[in-house]
C-alpha cells in the first residue's frame, strides 16, 4: 500500500495514467510524515517524564547513601538518556515536518503538471497547432525538474529520519537493559528497595512507551519502501 516517490521512480511516474496514483501516493506520504511527527511529539513528552523520574531516582539514591552507591551511575545515565531523547525527538520531528512540507510541494508540482497537460489535451482536441500547444512545454519541463529535485531531497530527508529513529531505538533498548540492572542493584538497598524498584519499573515503562512511538514511526517509514 503506497509507493515511495523515490528520485528514480519519480521520472517514470509523472504523466499518463500514473498521475492520479502519484497524487494519492504523495497524500499517503504526507499523512505518514505527519503521523511520525505526532508520535515524536508524544515521545518527547514521555522523555520529559523520564527525565523527571530519573531525577527522582537520583534523589532517592542519594538518600539511600552507601547502600545504593552502584545506582548513582545508573540514575545519572537515565537522566542523560532522557535529555538525549528529548533533543533527538525534536531533531527527528523537524525532519518529519520537512518531509511533510516537501510532500505538499510535490503535490502542487504534480497537480500543475497534470492540469497543464490536460490543457494541452483540450488544445489538441480543439485542433490547435503544435506551436500553440508547445508553448506550455517549457513550464512543464521546469516543473518536472523541480519535482525531481524535491524527490532527491526526499531521499536525503528520509535517510536522515531513518538513521535518527534507529539511534533513538538503540537508546531505548539500552534503557531497558539498564533498568534491569537498576532493579538488581536495588535489591541491595534494604528499606529503599521497594521505592527504587518502583522507580526502575516507572523508567522501564516510560522507555517502552517511547519505544512504541518509535516503532510506529519506523513502520510508517516502511510505507515509503526505503532501502
Amino acid at each position, binding site marked *: 500500500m503506497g509507493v515511495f516517490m523515490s528520485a528514480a521512480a519519480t521520472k517514470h511516474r509523472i504523466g499518463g495514467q500514473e498521475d492520479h496514483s502519484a497524487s494519492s501516493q504523495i497524500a499517503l506520504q504526507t499523512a505518514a510524515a505527519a503521523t511520525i511527527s505526532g508520535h515524536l511529539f508524544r515521545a518527547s513528552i514521555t522523555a520529559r517524564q523520564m527525565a523527571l523520574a530519573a531525577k527522582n531516582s537520583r534523589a532517592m539514591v542519594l538518600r539511600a547513601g552507601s547502600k545504593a552507591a552502584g545506582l548513582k551511575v545508573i540514575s545519572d545515565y537515565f537522566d542523560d538518556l532522557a535529555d538525549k531523547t528529548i533533543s533527538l525527538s525534536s531533531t527527528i520531528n523537524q525532519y518529519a515536518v520537512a518531509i511533510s512540507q516537501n510532500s505538499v510541494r510535490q503535490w502542487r*508540482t504534480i497537480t500543475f503538471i497534470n492540469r497543464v497537460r490536460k*490543457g494541452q489535451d483540450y488544445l489538441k482536441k480543439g485542433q490547435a497547432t503544435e506551436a500553440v500547444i508547445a508553448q*506550455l512545454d517549457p513550464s512543464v519541463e521546469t516543473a518536472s525538474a523541480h519535482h525531481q529535485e524535491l524527490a532527491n531531497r526526499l531521499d536525503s530527508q528520509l535517510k536522515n529520519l531513518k538513521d535518527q529513529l534507529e539511534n533513538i531505538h538503540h537508546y531505548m533498548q539500552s534503557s531497558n537493559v539498564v533498568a534491569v540492572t537498576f532493579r538488581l542493584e536495588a535489591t541491595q538497598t534494604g528499606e529503599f528497595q521497594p521505592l527504587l524498584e518502583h522507580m526502575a519499573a516507572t523508567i522501564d515503562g516510560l522507555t517502552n512507551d517511547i519505544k512504541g512511538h518509535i516503532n510506529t514511526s519506523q513502520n510508517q517509514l516502511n510505507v515509503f519502501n526505503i532501502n
Partner: protein
Amino acid sequence: MDALKLYDEGHKWFVFGRDPEKPEKIIDTNQVMIVDGKRSILLDPGGIEVFSAMLASILKYVEIDHVTDLFASHQDPDIISSLGMWDQVLPNARLHCSWLWEGFVRHFGMNNIQFEPIPDEGSRIRLENIELEFIPAHYLHSSGNFHVYDPKAKMLFSGDIGAALEPPGAPMFVDNFDAHVDKMRYFHERWMPSDKAKQQWIQRVRKLDIDVMIPQHGRLFKGDDVQRFISWFEALPVGIASN
C-alpha cells in the same frame, strides 16, 4: 469552455465561461481576458478546477508570454484559487488585487508572480495602449474589492455585483431583465452586507459610461439593461442575514 469576444477595436475583450466539464457542485464563473497588443490581463482567472480549461481557452487568442497581468477582484477561491498554477505557467506576471488580501491569496501559492497591491481608493494601470481603472467596490461583498472599468471599450467588469445563479447552458446576455431579476435577488440580498457601501458604489458607477457590465457569475448586461440593473440594485434591501 465557451469564449465570447465582446469587443474588438484595437484592443479586445473576451469572456470565458460555461465550462461543460466543470464539476457539478462548483459555482459557474465568468473569466475575462483583455488583450492589448503584447500585453494581456486576466480578470478573475478562476478556481483551480477550471484552470486547465481556462489555460487552453486563452491560448487560442494569445501567446502565453503575452499574458502579463492577472487581476483578482477579491480573495474568494472561485476567483483566484488557481493562482498556484498560474504562478508556475506565468512566472513573470503581476497580480493586481486589494492590498488587504496579499497575505491571504499567497496561501494559494505565489512564488514567482509579483503582487501589486491596489490601495483602497483604487488605481489605474496601462497595458500597451489602453488604460484600465480599478474602481473601489468595498464590502460588495468582500471588504477589499475592486471592479475594472475600460473607458475606451465602455466595459465594466463588476465582480459579484450583477451575479446570478443559473443552470448550465444559460445564454450569455440578459434578454429579459424582469425575468432575470428573480435569479439575482437572493444572491444580492444575502451576499451584499451594506446598503451604505451599495449606495456609494452606485454613485460611483453612475458617472461611468458603460455599454456592457460583466459580472463574475451569470449573464452579462448590455445597453439599457446596465442602468436597469443599477436602479434595481439601488432599491434592493441587502444584508438580510443580519435581520
